[in-house]
């Protein structure tokens, strides 16, 4: 379990992202931020507050409402010596950027036979239950995880967010970085000093022996709460956080499932053809001879996210639904 040292400060997820960006912008003048309302407004979520004051409007650039355009500009800037961080306010808007990200950014290195590279970060959000309805609530990280040439980061704690963001900015490839909107105010220990977290290393967020809960981003806290509830009924759950969906730490996922013999995958993207499918099939394959029950998937319900709170809350896995599923798998229902 990777952890900050004992006397680390406690800061929010948003502050951790902000700090990572500030540190990297201080370290490397090629890094700049571009997006809608990123400067004085510091984004609608206030994640970037203060950066324009330190780095100026030439490095924290307010753009028109042109997601395809700013993504395209970032690709061109990245190819020619800069290291842009492009801010796409809501994950739902990556729909507008898919050509530039998928056909351009992701492929240029390969198509050029390794000659050109596109070191850029696409920061965006995921997660529902904010009463924002169907066009502001999607978790579309499965799409980008599908695409060779991209790396995809789904941090779940302030500590991970900072270390992974720094790694993302230093990576020479296009990296999509998904932040859960509802996690921005969550607090956690984050050391002041410099650290990075490598991609492709899953983190055991809680150790256990009876069942593996593989959870991503927003669902890690759900899994941890479920693990607590399960502990009360005598089930010891291990919570594994892949932290990056690509590169994916298959080995650690499989190892945990082999140890516990049962696994549930929990992710906030739509369930069908989503992240849970990949992770479940990786485990079902790799741990085939050790599993005592089928690997179960818990994604977001396969419906456009409804506005009404009474409906929206039904669409996302909760500690209760995870606990229920885990008990069922362990034969304790």
């Amino acid at each position, binding site marked *: 379990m990777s952890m900050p040292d004992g006397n680390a400060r406690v800061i929010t997820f948003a502050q951790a992202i902000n700090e990572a960006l500030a540190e990297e912008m201080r370290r490397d003048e090629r890094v700049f931020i571009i997006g*809608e*309302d990123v400067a004085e407004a510091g984004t609608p979520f206030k994640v970037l507050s203060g950066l324009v004051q330190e780095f100026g409007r030439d490095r924290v650039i*307010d753009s028109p*409402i042109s997601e395809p355009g700013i993504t395209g500009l970032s690709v061109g800037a990245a190819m020619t010596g800069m290291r842009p961080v492009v801010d796409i306010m809501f994950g739902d808007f990556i729909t507008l950027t898919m050509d530039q990200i998928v056909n351009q950014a992701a492929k240029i290195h390969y198509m050029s036979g390794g000659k050109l590279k596109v070191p850029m970060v696409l920061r965006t959000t995921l997660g529902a239950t904010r*009463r924002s309805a*169907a*066009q*502001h609530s999607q978790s579309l990280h499965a799409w980008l995880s599908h695409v060779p040439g991209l790396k995809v980061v789904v941090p779940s704690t302030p500590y991970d967010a900072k270390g992974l963001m720094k790694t993302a900015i230093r990576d020479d490839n296009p990296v999509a970085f998904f932040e859960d909107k509802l996690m921005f105010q969550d607090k956690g220990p984050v050391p002041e000093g410099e650290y990075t977290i490598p991609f492709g290393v899953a983190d055991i967020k809680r150790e256990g022996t009876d069942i593996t809960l593989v959870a991503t981003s927003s669902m890690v806290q759900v899994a941890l709460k479920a693990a607590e509830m399960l502990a009360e009924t005598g089930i010891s759950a291990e919570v594994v956080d892949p932290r990056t969906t690509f590169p994916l730490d298959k080995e650690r996922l499989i190892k945990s499932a082999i140890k516990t013999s049962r696994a549930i995958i929990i992710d906030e993207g739509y369930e069908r053809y989503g992240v849970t499918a990949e992770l479940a099939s990786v485990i079902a394959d790799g741990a085939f001879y050790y599993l005592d029950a089928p690997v179960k998937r818990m994604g977001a*319900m396969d419906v456009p996210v409804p506005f009404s709170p009474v409906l929206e809350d039904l669409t996302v896995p909760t500690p209760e639904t995870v606990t229920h599923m885990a008990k069922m798998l362990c034969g304790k229902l």
Partner: protein
Amino acid sequence: MTSKIDPSNPHFTGVDREQWIHIYQQMLRIRLFEDTANELYRSAKMPGLTHMYSGQEAVAVGVCEALRPDDYITSTHRGHGHCLAKGAKPNIMFAELLGKAAGYCRGKGGSMHIADMDSGNLGANAIVGGSAGIATGAAMSAKMRGSSQIAACFFGEGALGQGLLYEVMNMAQLWQLPVLYVCENNLYNEYTHYSETTAGDLLKRPQAFGIHGEEVDGQDVRFVYTTALRLVEQVRTSQSPAFLQCNTYRFHGHHVGDIDRTYYRSKEEEAQWRTNRDPLTILSEWMMAQEIVDQALLADIGHEIEGETEAAVQFGLNAPYPDVSEVNQHVYA
């Protein structure tokens, strides 16, 4: 009382007294709806956020009054004004804002997705510029079906940042589609002044495609309405697109939660618009001067619509939430 419309002003002739009064009522209906919605937010009764239309009433009402009931409109995240102006009922709208089953979308859409086919409203849209294709396609459909309907596409000046708009304006002109693009320039894209996001002269953009474009004072419904009457007629009879830029201002924040605004616009600017450029005041003062109305009638209208609004919000508050079984209904037709 016969109409006292200044016969020397060619803009306002031929519109009779009842019509101006009706226009005033519609604008007031929007204003009170928004004030009430704001109150719902402040008292934590409404889920999520909402974007208020207050200050821009003359645009929605001026344009929609020029449309036929079966003409189409598409709207935006700041859509309550368009919905009401096109004929939606406040009580069913409040129900939607509150996520209730009696709402226009059974509570599934919320503030940003109110659609009402009965009044020709193809829907508010939470993607900036996202409805430009829908409106243009509805115009194409009307032309194909020979229905003589037209479509009016409302969008903020921020949507000029979206490439989609240029793609569909090109086709609207190529294929001579009966669509009226209504650009509401309220000076801000969220927290950024439009001059920082928009190069050149706005009207040149439609004109670049050969589309007829005009600009109008969006605070003065007399101009908006008479100009819209003329353009709607032109669009319908010539079966070709037109573009109307309405210069306006939003009195509140970008959304109900946008309280501290001084970092992007001054209190003086806001006061100036509220005091001198309130579309309700401009119209009511003129109607008084023209003896179309007197204080007593205005007061009566005020009370009537206050009562209606109060009843409407009570309807919404008292309405039941959708049954949980609705969560996966209406995914497919």
